[in-house]
């Protein structure tokens, strides 16, 4: 195992902030904060009220800009994978999250928090396959 104790504290604090944001979404708008679904419904204009989805995605990017200014190491990517690998990864994530109706936020955080067996199944599945793929193609 390799980790720093500071890393664990930051992970816990970040997790609590994520929990706070999805809780505010539920309290004010009564919705699940699922990034893949929000992105898809924004892109396809399919579910009518797409403006809040666009504004939410804008919030994500503005949050990213704040991170870049105040916590630049948080956006560091030291992996240097070839772009073809990243492109394949992106395609699988986009297609897979729509087929399975959710990603780490919708199933992993919101779904498990309301004890949804469906979301727990999805989360265990994508984590297990992720672990398998890293085992097969090699880690960091």
């Amino acid at each position, binding site marked *: *195992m*390799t980790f720093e104790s500071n*890393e*664990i504290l930051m992970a*816990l604090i*970040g*997790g*609590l902030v*994520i*929990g706070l944001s999805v809780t505010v979404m*539920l309290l004010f708008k009564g919705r*699940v904060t699922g990034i*893949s679904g929000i*992105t898809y419904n924004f892109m396809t204009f399919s579910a009518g009220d797409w403006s*809040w989805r666009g*504004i*939410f*995605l804008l*919030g*994500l990017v*503005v*949050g*990213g800009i704040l*991170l870049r200014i105040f916590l630049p190491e*948080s*956006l560091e*990517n*030291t*992996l240097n*994978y070839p*772009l073809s690998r*990243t492109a*394949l*990864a*992106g*395609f699988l*994530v986009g297609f*897979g999250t*729509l*087929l*399975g109706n959710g990603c*780490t*936020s919708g*199933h992993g*955080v919101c779904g*498990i*928090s309301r004890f949804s067996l*469906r979301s727990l*199944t*999805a989360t265990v*599945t*994508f984590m*297990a396959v*992720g*672990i398998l793929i*890293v*085992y097969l*193609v090699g*880690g*960091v």
Partner: protein
Amino acid sequence: MKLLISFLVGLTFAIGLGVSGMTQPQKVIGFLDLFGHWNPALVFVMVGAIGFHAIFFPMITKRKSPILTDQFHLPTSKDLDLRLIVGASLFGAGWGLGGFCPGPGIVSLASGSSSSLTFVVSMLFGMVVFHFVKPFINKVLP
């Protein structure tokens, strides 16, 4: 007001992802590298997020309605079907290959790096392809 809340939730969510380490693909790969150099730190993102939300979820859904809208819009499907398993598997494969899931990918666009841009454009392409093959998938995996 509704749009302001959406913006603030997106902003806060992004900050949480950045502080937690989820926007650093090397940490995600380290977390998934269970049989190698496993880095368990990201377990605590789930502990924090699920712990917080699980406490407030029942309190909030006891209300007649959310503050800004008439009713809750929560997923109702309970099916453990092949679509869920295949979809989650494809997602997990992509997550393990690149170290990005959708939220951190979009937040990382702010870094201006070619890897995050490539990830997000490919993810959107994957979503568009899904959109057009959906009628076919509905027949094969009902």
